[in-house]
């Protein structure tokens, strides 16, 4: 059963962002990891790099696809999940927790409000699944 965590917001391209004080954490959704199947590699950005909302900040490779991962909000990278280097399967096992991608400092916290909440995102995923991905 695909989960839609309610304590964070989503991009239609399946990234999530979660605010933690002045900082934010991002990763890909449970729906996304389920669609990708076994993740074998995650290419992460360097700490200190800055990305605009919608820019590619990571690439996730699974046994059947390589997909760009887009920045949910404009910001500067503060930390990356180095655990993913040796254990990319964390993305499959715990996409909302241990499978996080980056911690960043959003330059405009208002952008968070423009993201989809869990309900809207779930609806979006259902529509996408009905259209056949």
């Amino acid at each position, binding site marked *: 059963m695909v989960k839609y965590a309610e304590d964070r917001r989503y991009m239609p391209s399946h990234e999530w962002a979660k605010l933690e004080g002045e900082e934010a954490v991002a990763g890909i959704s449970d729906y996304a990891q389920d669609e990708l199947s076994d993740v074998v*590699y995650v290419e992460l950005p360097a700490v200190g790099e800055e990305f605009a909302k919608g820019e590619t900040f990571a690439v996730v490779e699974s046994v059947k696809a*390589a997909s760009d991962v887009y920045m949910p909000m404009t910001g500067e990278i503060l930390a990356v999940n180095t655990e993913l280097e040796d254990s990319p399967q964390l993305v499959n096992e715990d996409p909302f927790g241990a499978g996080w991608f980056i911690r960043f400092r959003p330059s405009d916290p208002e952008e968070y409000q423009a993201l989809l909440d869990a309900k809207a995102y779930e609806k979006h995923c259902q529509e996408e699944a009905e259209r056949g991905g």
Partner: protein
Amino acid sequence: MSYVPNTDADRAAMLEAIGVRNAADLFRDVPEAVRFPELDLPAPVSELEVLRELKELSEYNVDLEHAPCFLGAGAYQHFVPSVVGHIISRSEFYTAYTPYQPEISQGTLQSIFEYQSMICALTGMDAANASHYDGATALAEAAVMAVNVGRGKRRRVVVSAAVHPEYRAVVRTYTQGAGLVICGDDGNPFDLEALVELMDADTACVIVQNPSFLGYVQEPSTLRTLAKAAHDTGALLVISADPISLGLFAPPSEYGADIACGEGQALGGGLNFGGPYLGYFACREQYVHKMAGRIVGQTVDQRGERGFVLTLSAREQHIRREKASSNICSNEALMALAAAVYLTALGKSGLRKVAELCYHKAHYAAQRLATLPGYELHGQGTFFHEFPLHCPRPVQEINDYLLNEWGIIGGYDLGRNYPELANVMLVCVTEVTTQDEIDTLVEALQDIEEAL
């Protein structure tokens, strides 16, 4: 039986669709007079006669079995043990294309895996791919890979002027349209340290050939300085190295290279009129996801037994599509196999012996040639199996005389690529060159001065 699949009715339908009456109408644009010219061909002859005639024609060629050769410049004559030809002529190998299916390709996959392992042992790098077309395209892929390691944000590729001129041309051709700045190779080919000044935050990599195109082995301390300068700005050090030289000199890993590549023809490939050749390619582990081409990996099957598969294929075009960083989905499997068999036949000490023979014979030749009046070594330092020799007259003139009067293939005319090196010949000597051949060359050059 007809081998043409379309019928007369099919053809009539096609002609009607494009609005012409018959196939001859398609050639109306060709003037009538030249449409079916009278061909001035000799009368038919038997197979035996054809063979005789072709054989006679082929004997006009100068070949390495009859002519001592001092020409290298990227393609090298080495002894190829007969086992190489025997193994690569097995139909299981020479008919096989890229082995997609591990279920039926274990032999080919294993041979590629062993080739990769040997390239890693030779270069000191962590991972090698299944090979590229030749040394030049391997180097171009290295430049592209370095740009990708820099996430496409670093657009500058610094190249030493002592990199093979044709490789530099291929790097430019390969990357045209990508908006890269390729610079540095208008400088002094003997001054590697000058490249440090050219590296900035926009630099993706610095490319050096070792031994250089001019034959010299680059100073390890200079290379380390270059590696440090590259790494300090976040760029990679790419080394293009002759693989035989690695039997004797330090591997690229020892002086900080991130990518090692080069021409693998010397490893059991023969000269073959210029191809097929072999581009070997290896890098440090941290960059393996950016490496182009096929990679064969070792794994275990359901029963826990060792097996081989294509691995890390999410890098490649069939998965990554338009986002793939390279369109290379193939390799030079047969030549990679030749290299693996060659290296296996020689072993570690055998390869060192070949490299030592090259080195000592080349130094004997340099020493003898430098005693001739008007001849001297150009530049200084350690060289491997090639050295630039300053001559008293144009290299082309010398080479014509050597070939026509003495049946000797002379060295490469460096003036062709380096105007400042007019009258400088790049002389190559390998383990197959005999002392007698070197002495004859010396004698022939003396003869030229008397004759011309």
